[in-house]
């Protein structure tokens, strides 16, 4: 009877959580879809020459790298290797913070060349801002994971929290992979 309650129908709690998370990503995807279509609707393919291409490329690479370390943290957790898990979470948090610092530098330059009241600036600040907000929430979630991991909350058989946050981090990464070309590469 206890088992029947735990596995209600054909889906376990883990399957249910995964499905919910993916539906959440689908919903979030529509937010980025709306932002990207706004960009093309209002500004077409316009791109100011003052955009700092080098900085944009560097922070993109950093964010993609952070997905790698996040993945390694998840695998370490699956194998029950708590030390490597915490190390890779710390790497991921650091790379995320570096990304945010990059965005701040970008914004400082942006205020000078294309302030938020201008056509391109409106989209640039909104899109990077919405994305940076997602990065920030991801970093907060990773920090919570780090401390929960340190107190021994996750085991190799039970690490849904890790899996969920890491998947979210990948999603935030993918969102940037969509935003970056929209802002920096089209012309």
């Amino acid at each position, binding site marked *: *009877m206890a088992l*029947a*309650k735990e596995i*209600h*129908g054909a*889906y376990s709690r883990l*399957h*249910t959580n995964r*499905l*919910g998370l993916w*539906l*959440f990503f*689908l*919903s*979030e995807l*529509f*937010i980025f*879809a*709306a*932002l990207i*279509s*706004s960009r093309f*609707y*209002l*500004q077409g393919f316009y791109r100011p020459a003052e955009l700092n291409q080098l900085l944009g490329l560097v922070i993109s690479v950093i964010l993609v790298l952070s997905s790698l370390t996040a993945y390694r943290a998840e695998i370490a957790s699956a194998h029950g290797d708590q030390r490597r898990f915490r190390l890779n979470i710390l790497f991921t948090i650091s790379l995320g913070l570096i990304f945010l610092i990059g965005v701040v530098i970008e914004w400082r330059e942006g205020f000078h060349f294309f302030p*938020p*009241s*201008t*056509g*391109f*600036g*409106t989209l640039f*600040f*909104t899109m990077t801002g919405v994305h940076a907000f997602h990065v920030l929430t991801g970093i907060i979630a990773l920090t*919570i994971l780090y*401390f*929960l991991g340190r*107190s021994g*909350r996750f085991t190799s058989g039970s690490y849904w929290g890790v899996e969920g946050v890491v998947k979210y981090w990948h999603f935030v990464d993918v969102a940037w992979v969509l935003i970056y070309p929209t802002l920096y590469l089209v012309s």
Partner: protein
Amino acid sequence: MAALTGIIKGLIFALIGFIFGGGIGFLLINAAGRSGTNEPVIALGYLFALIGWLFGAGLWDAWGREWVGLPARKLEVNGWKRYFRFCTNHKVIGVQYLVTFVFLFLFAGLLAMLMRTELIAPGQTIMGPNTYNTTMSLHGIIMIAVAVATIMGAFANFFLPILIGAEDVAFPRVNALSFWLLPPVVILLLLTPLFGGFDTGWTAYPPLSVINATGSLFFLMAFITFGISSILGGLNFITTVITQRASGMTWGRLPIFAWGIFTASMISLTATSFVAVGLIQVVLDRVAGTSFFNASQGGNPLLYEHIFWFYSHPAVYIMILPGFGIILEVITHFSRKPLFAYKWVVGSFFFIVFLGFIVWAHHLNTSGMSDYLYIPFMVTTELISIPTGVVFLSALGTMWLGRLWLRPPMLFALGYLFNFLIGGVTGIFNADVPTDIHLHDTYFIVAHFHYTMMGGVIFALMAGIYYWFPKLTGRMYNETLAKVHFWWMFIMFNVTFIPMFWLGINGMNRRVFDYPEALGGVNMFVSIAAFLLGASFLVFLTNMVYSWLRGPVAEANPWRARTLEWQISSPPPEENFPEPPQVVGDPYGYGIPGSVHAVLNPAGSALNTGGG
């Protein structure tokens, strides 16, 4: 006191959050050297107040504690006090939704009475243009919320898990969260008149919504908050239907109401986050000085109309699909016949979801959008009559040669079919570009969407209330009063709204407190009819309140229906089913010899749910 601890803590935390967020806003205004606006303070203050409210009201106890390694606290209260707390039981949340939204419905109905009082004669009668516009806008947005969330929030929460043989929804805490996001919405909307009101209607088109009084900001934040609640609800119901079905509840045996909720949830999950971006863009234009909709800086107000209707047209199917579900349930149970063309109806629901996403620009026929968009959107819009026609055929085919049992739920279902038919047929004139250019923004549109929304969704809601009331409360209502309510509401509804088609064709504009002298007589008639329509709800309210408190105890299955919710006691026990039921056949096999829907006690004696 135990009942109110959550609410009091929520309010205190909200206040702290508001001071914190508002402080940040204040510092930002000073840092940016902008003066003469306090809207950043309000916007940031509200953001943190909302978080504070949710955590105080129960999110922290039920969930947040786990994030810092503490065990979650179980809710210690029982009985009626649970209805005021962050309770994760789907039946409690269903009742919370139902009561909240029935009161909002009656309140917005009173606003409509105020509007009709103003419109009883040409010129200013009781209020000026600004007050009228705020009244109209509040009536609009509250009724939209009622139509979106009452069937989804109340009946889907209470009955969907039971219909599919589950113990609860997939994510009970998310479910409670989506309800507790609603009190801030109500408070914000009620505050709007104190901050200059908002005169944009519920559509909030820029540039007006960017430059008008601060009340508009309150409205936008309320809409966004409501959107989050709606997204979480949709996510929960999709996951519930996919993962929580009882053993044997295959997709082909799913009750049609569950299909209506499932397809409507697909829309609310996706389209709602799209519109949130449009609303956030207006907020940013107001608060942060961006220029999404400022044409002199390269913005374009048309962008908003596209984003808004990309959600808001599908949103009418968030309202209608659960309504279709209830109506078809009621018609099949009260005709004692299997649901006609079940698979085609399910297919039509999906087709409606798909088409709903590619028709939005028919709301923009007079907006000055590009010429090449008119014909494609006219064609896709008129295509929608095919799947809705299938739903009608299913309703008629089910009743064909059936023994109709004209109890109150069935009466409302039949009224629904009549009203929705008029709403649908008049929709063709709005979809056709040549006629719509004349009819756009007139009372013809008002009459059309009231025939689909009030004549449709609200009649479906009433059918649902009269159908499920005995199961929800464990008590039976007064049948005579229910029938009086139906005939009174049905007749006065038609008497009120039929003349509005004529008013619209003759040039009466919507959203204006005044109209040409020549239309005075008909407007007087409409206003009096509207007051009588409003009065019919007094019968409803009396019946409901009295029956809930003092009505006779209801049987477990007063309608002798076959679906799962009627096989358990009224009201249902805490865990719905003593053990997971085993579904073995079609839910609608009325009159089919030997047909059984489910075995409730698979291990023990065969307490099955056949017959009919």
